[in-house]
Every structure is written in C-alpha cells, then in structure tokens.
C-alpha cells in the first residue's frame, strides 16, 4: 500500500480517504512548526525581526511597473509647478464654495447620494437640475457667482454611476466612475456627523496625475479643519480605485486610535481628466481611460 502513489489508488472512496488523512497530517506538521517557531521567537525577538525582514510577500503594490510620472517626495520641479497650478489659489487661503447638481430628472437614489455629499463637504450647495440649461451654461453661471467647484452626479437606470468634478474658473475637469455606494445609515454602528470641518487624508496619490486628482479633492474642503469635531475624511487610492471613507476618531493612548465610521462609503475610478473646463467636443484630454491602457494589473496611473 505504501509503495503506491495516492493518485494511483483506484478506488475513489479510498483515495479520498487517504488524501484527507494526508491533508490532516500536513496541517498538524504545519501547526507544530509554527508553534515551535513562535516559541523560539518569543525567546529571541531578533529572529522574528529577521524573518519579517526577509519574508516580504510580493504584492501588486511592491511589484508595480516603473512609471516615470511617479513623483518623488521632494521634487522641486513638481512643488514649483504645483505652486502655480489651478489650485494654488485655494491652497493660499481662498475659501471653497461648491455647487452640486445632477442630470435632469434625477432619481431618488441619486438625490440621496447628493444629500450625503452635502453632509460631507462644508459650503456645498445642492441645486436641483432643470432641463433648461446645458452643463456648459451652468458652468458659466457658477463662474459668475464665484463658485470654486461644481460637482455633477450622473445617473443610469436611476442609480448614480458617474461623478464629474469641475474646478472653476479654469478647470481641470475630472470624470469618475462611481460604484459601491453605501449610505451612512446602512453602515452598522455608524456615528453621526457634526458640522465641523473635517480633516483630510489623501493616501497614495503618487504620480503627477494622482497629485492633480488629490489636489482637486483637497480643494473641495476648507483648508483649516476643526479638530474638535474629530472627523476625518479619507480618499485612499489603491490600484487606481479611490476609496472614500469618513470616520470619527478617538486617541485611546499614544499607540492606539479608535475609529467609528460616519459614512457614506463609495469608490471612485478616474475615467478622464480634461485640462480646461468641461467641453465634450473640443476639450483637451490630459488623461483618458482606454481598455488598451490596461496592459497589466501592475500598471497604475494615479
């Protein structure tokens, strides 16, 4: 019996049983090994450190394809460019004033999403969209009224599917796909929002394009947060998906901070970025998503 390879046992039931036994045996050995390792490492923490140093799992993040657009931490050129870009005014202290609207005849879910947005961004005003004016006209109206940003939520089958973010008065315009929306009330054990200006965390926007998008988000919020509200808004970029979260936090001690989610959650994915104001016909696309661009999952643009 021992001489026969398990895969060559002809009786299917028997073969299964042997396999099962082998599986269990394997697990036992593994557990034992781990237990011993743990014991050794408890006695000698250096071993553990050494192991963790060597045993770095390969992930999509650390095997990312080389991208010359990735910005180094202290890149003087980029810093100077950013001092003169469209958002520079905001970062020099101009208060944001934001308008949000939808496509004409918006459905209930879309309006609900917009209401969530209103609770997130201070100084955000919702105006119901009529069918009389084209978006380009609305942009003009907003410019005349000195809005700094315009958000348009687009829907399909009565569900919000896209968000267009237009920075005024000179652009740029970004168009995002919007997915996996979860309202604040749907989140179990959610906290309630207060009207304090939230803190902002922008995680992992690494390339030039990512910096632009990150700065666009940053420009929506008042620059000086009200820390007593302990609210933090996060835009976390991972593999080009931008995850939005909002939490209330408590510093328990110097090592621990507890979070309670306020909501909503949603995910954005950049579809295109136009240089100036929204112009579907003659607009200059700084970046445009095409299926051809997805040559590898290790290629990331933001």
């Amino acid at each position, binding site marked *: 019996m021992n001489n026969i390879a398990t895969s060559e046992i002809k009786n299917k039931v028997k073969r299964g049983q042997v396999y099962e036994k082998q599986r269990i045996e394997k697990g036992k050995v593994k557990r034992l090994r781990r237990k011993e390792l743990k014991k050794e490492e408890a006695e000698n923490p250096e071993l553990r450190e050494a192991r963790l140093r060597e045993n770095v799992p390969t992930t999509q993040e650390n095997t990312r394809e080389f991208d010359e657009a990735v910005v180094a931490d202290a890149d003087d050129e980029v810093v100077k460019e950013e001092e003169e870009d469209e958002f520079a005014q905001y970062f020099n202290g101009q208060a944001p004033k934001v308008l949000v609207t939808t496509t004409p005849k918006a459905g209930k879910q879309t309006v609900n999403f917009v209401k969530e947005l209103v609770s997130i961004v201070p100084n955000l005003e919702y105006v119901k969209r009529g069918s009389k004016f084209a*978006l*380009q006209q609305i942009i003009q109206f907003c410019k005349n009224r000195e809005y700094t940003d315009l958000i348009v939520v687009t829907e399909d089958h009565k569900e919000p599917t896209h968000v267009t973010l237009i920075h005024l008065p000179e652009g740029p315009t970004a168009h995002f796909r919007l997915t996996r929306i979860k309202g604040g009330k749907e989140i179990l054990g959610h906290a309630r929002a207060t009207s304090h200006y939230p803190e902002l965390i922008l*995680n992992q926007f690494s390339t030039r394009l990512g910096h632009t998008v990150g700065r666009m988000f940053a420009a929506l919020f008042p620059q000086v947060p009200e*820390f*007593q509200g302990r609210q933090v808004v996060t835009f*976390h970029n991972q593999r080009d998906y931008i995850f939005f979260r909002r939490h209330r936090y*408590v510093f328990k*001690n110097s090592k621990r901070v507890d*979070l309670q989610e306020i909501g909503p959650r949603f995910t954005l994915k950049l579809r295109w970025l136009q240089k100036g104001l929204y112009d579907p016909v003659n607009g200059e696309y700084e970046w445009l998503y095409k299926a051809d661009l997805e040559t590898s*999952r290790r290629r990331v643009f933001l």
Partner: protein
Amino acid sequence: MNNDGIVWEVLNNQFCSYKVKTDVGNLCRHPHNLTGRCNRRECPLANSKYATVRETAGRIYLCLKTAERAHIPSKQWERIELPKNFAQAVEVIDSNMQYWPKWMIHMCKQRLTKITQYLIRMRKLKLKNKSTLVPIKKKLERRERTREVRAEAAARLDQSIEKELLERLKSKAYGDQPLNVNEAVWKEILEGDAVEAESDVTTEDELEEENEYEFDKAKDPFAHEFVSDDSDLENDGEDMEDLLGMSASEFSSAEDEDEEEEDEGEYESGSDDEMSEDSDAADHSDKRAKGKRAASSAPRQKPTKRTKKHGPRVEIEYETEAVAKDNMLTNW
C-alpha cells in the same frame, strides 16, 4: 403633348407611385408637392404651372414650373434661391409669382415659414449637448468589480487611516494644544518624546556608567512599549512587592471575593507552594467566570497577566476598555 387632364386621369384612376391612401384621405409623396395632399389642384405632375418651396442642405429654394418649359424635362423646374432673411424671402416669392394663383402663393409662403422654423430648431439642437449612448461592457464591468474588491482588501483602510492619524498626532500636526486629544493621552505622548530625547543623548555620550544609570531611569518607558497590558505599568513596583513578600491570603484578598470562596481549599495549602497555587487559581477562574472578570477592577490585573502565558482566552481588553470609558466620561 402636354395634357394635364389625361395625366391626372391616369394618376387618379389607374396608378400613381407617389400616392398614399389613408383613412384621412389620399396623400402624395412627391418631393415637389406643395401641401402633401393628393388632388387635382395640388398634383405636381398633372399641373404644368406649379410652384413649390424646397429645402436642400439648409438652403431654401423656390421652384417654379411653367408650361413653356414642359417639353424639356431636364430644365422643367426653375430654381430660385431664397435669401436667409424671412421677410426678404417672402418678397422674392411675391415678385417671382406675381400673376400666379393666390392660393399657390399663400401655400408657398406657408411652406417657407415651416422650413425656416425647422431650420432654426435644427441649429439650436446642434448647439445643445447631445447625450450619447455608451455601451456597458459586461466583461469590463465584472473585471473592475472584482478588482475593486481586491484593491479594497489590499488597502487595509482602517489600519492605514489609524496609522496616518497617529503619525499626525506624534508629529505634532495638531499643534501644541490639540483639541482632538484627551489630556492624558497628550501627556503620554509628550513624555514619550522627552524619553526619546533623553535616550538619544545617552547613546551619543556612550559612557558605560552613565548608560547603566540611564537605563534604569528609562526602564519604565521601555516597559511601556512592550508590555501588552498598559495598566500594568503603574503597578510594576507593587508586583515586585507581591512576589517578594506577600502571603497567599494577602494576595488572594486582592482578587475577586467570589473566586476566593470557591478556591479556599487550594489557598489553605502551605506557603511554600504559593506561586504555583496562585497561578492555578487564576487559571480556574479564567475558565469559570468571564462575566465576573469583566466587572473586576484594577488590582485584579496581575493574575490576568499571568494567565495570558497559559492560554489565549484572556479578557484583558474588557478591563482596559472599562477604565478608558470612565476616563472618557470624565474628560470628554
């Protein structure tokens, strides 16, 4: 050669390929028809004197047909381009159809009005943004959905947010007197900074004697870092006392009374074995009473620390949390 009556006879009674019979009446599909109706008067084929207004590529023309040119079918229609201005166009119609039947002039003008209006509407629509239909690519959608889920898992959002917040707190991004931090926590951080600074100085000095001295001083914060149960730290000195001089009964008095009652038999055994007995008792209690444990207060933390070595089922977090909640109530 040119007998309108015969033509009409044929078209009306035999066959006309432009004729459409409907419930409303007979209609005409001929592009030169002035009104679209099919009758003797408005038929463009059976009338050798006929006028109409047509639009091609955004331009409006007045088309006239007279009996004099009936013998040259290629030049049968006289085409006059009408000016873009409506009033001028009307004038042109009037001047070119001076002695034509009144109803025909009137119909031409009506047709001109209609064409001008739809041209205006067309231009307006061109200026408006058209909504375009975009195909939903099922495969792409599915791929993006799964990748999104995986990206979210890889992002470890909570951890990364927590890390960022702690970094901000420690780098003093919230200022010298932060409003979002409990006073005790802030003190702890400031102390931690002070200790770090001190230890830095000592490493630079690299004097052995001093090092020893400093090490003793820095022992407490060092313990701060690696001991799992924070509230233990303050009791470190007491622990030592316990180990050195405390009798079994004294020790047990620090524990929960309920447990004491249950474990009396064991505690009565000699003082030589106290250590092992203690750990046993703690072990028992751990298995027995979770609820009681949760309710117990600070002095009981020593035995829990010991039991942690024995098994994974330790409820230390309950206790620390209870303490923290009290703090919160008073300070927030």
